[in-house]
């Protein structure tokens, strides 16, 4: 969605960055429903149990200058190894450990070339649609408050 600022190096990485961002922005209930809807859930073990911590958010002086530390953000991370050996990672804002675990599982599944396109269509695409709808609503709300101030023409300026 707001991926303009994310550096990337290859199409494969870019695709993974996109689905990880979508999973991170999803509601837990949405991921839970998607997981429940999977016909063949993989066996997995957690290489790293979901762990809550912080990241220091940085701003830039003046908006585009040198970095400064703005404040910290709660984040949860987790790593899950699927039965096929692939490892999925969850990095999600907030402290929802279940959401993080589900994000890691889907990240692992989506790396499986055999399942990827089906999962992109059945799981990621609906999430993207929901997130884009929420964003569009925000943008629409904002657009409706757009004004055109006008200054009255003053006498001395009149031709």
């Amino acid at each position, binding site marked *: *969605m*707001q991926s*303009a*600022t*994310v*550096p*990337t190096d290859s199409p494969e*990485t870019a695709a993974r*960055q996109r689905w*990880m*961002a979508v999973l*991170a*922005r999803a509601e837990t209930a949405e991921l839970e429903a998607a997981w429940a809807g999977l016909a063949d859930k993989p066996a997995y073990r957690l290489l790293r149990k979901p*762990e*809550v*911590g*912080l*990241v*220091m*958010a*940085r*701003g*830039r*002086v*003046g*908006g*585009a*200058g*040198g*970095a*400064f530390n*703005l*404040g*910290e*953000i*709660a984040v949860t*991370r987790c*790593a899950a190894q699927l039965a096929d050996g692939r490892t999925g*990672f969850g*990095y*999600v*804002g*907030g*402290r929802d450990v279940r959401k993080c675990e589900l994000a890691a599982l889907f990240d692992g599944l989506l790396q499986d070339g055999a399942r990827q396109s089906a999962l992109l269509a059945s799981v990621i695409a609906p999430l993207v649609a929901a997130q884009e709808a929420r964003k*569009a*609503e*925000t*943008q*629409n*709300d*904002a*657009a*409706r*408050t*757009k*004004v*055109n*101030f*006008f*200054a009255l023409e003053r006498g001395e300026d009149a031709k």
Partner: protein
Amino acid sequence: MYVAVKGGEQAIDASLEQLARERRGDASVPELSVAQIKQQMRLAVDRVMCEGSLYDPDLAALAIKQARGDLFEAVFLLRAYRTTLPRFGVTLPLDTAAMTTRRRISATYKDIPGGQILGPSFDYSHRLLDFALMDEGAPGLAPERADETRGESAPLPRVTDILGQEGLIEGDGDLDGQAPGDLTREPLRFPASRDLRLQNLARGDEGFLLAMAYSTQRGYGRNHPFAGEIRMGDIAIVIEPEELGFAVEIGDVTVTECQMITQFKGSADKPPQFTRGYGLTFGYCERKAMAMALCDRALRAKELGEDITAPAQDEEFVLAHSDSVEASGFVQHLKLPHYIDFQSELLSVRDMRAKAMARANAKEAADDAA
């Protein structure tokens, strides 16, 4: 000096019980949920996240509930909580130009590309108490969205870049690759660099910064400012975990940004131009962002060769007193037992009085004798 005092456990337990009862209030009134605070007291939540220097709306709402609405206490709770968590890393610097903007105004340009977007603002309300809000469940409290689509927002160039095209305003400064200083890791020393000043201001108490900013407008370190641009909206948080080896978005946060513009008559090595003060806050904290920008500009006095004549230009005065947790702690520590301290002062005052009386008596006796 204060000393540890033993005893009083039962009284303390009873005090905490009473606090819990008073927090709950009249049991016939439904209990406030954390979700309600998060949704309906959002500006309090934003302030607590901003000054608590921890973005987590659920925890900020919990802190407000636990603190019975005492926002200073809530900030303290959030600050204490953050010390229990490990830090996984840092984010890539927030790209405020790429914000999903919910509000964006400029007081310097009427027709800015992308337009003026008012968003949800008190600015145009009449500040009359709305008694309809007392009537819970009354219709019309949350107006339905108009069924009308205005389409995608245009990109919103920064107002400072408009002036920048003409070279009339200073730039954003160097993008030096150095890691910025971090007040949560090492104590503040003076003189402080601008990155440290901005971190301090970003977590500073809104009331204090507002008063400092106001003082500059009233003539204490005057610099005639314009609100070049204020924008509020949602912005992606991007981190680059080592184990992944690539950057990943972990969600969005709401921030408010303020660009203040001030005329500058130039110096030996700088032409006349506009200079800038910068404010950035977690959440929708517009007043704070504006005050922060004014304080940032005032604190650049030395760098810009201006006379330092006012408190707002004195970095030690501003930065050492801006933190509400520190200020509140030091003022409130006066409540702790100072019994021994006070006993020694009592003895000292009694002794001084006795000596003063003796001198007065002696002088009187001498005068009588004369």
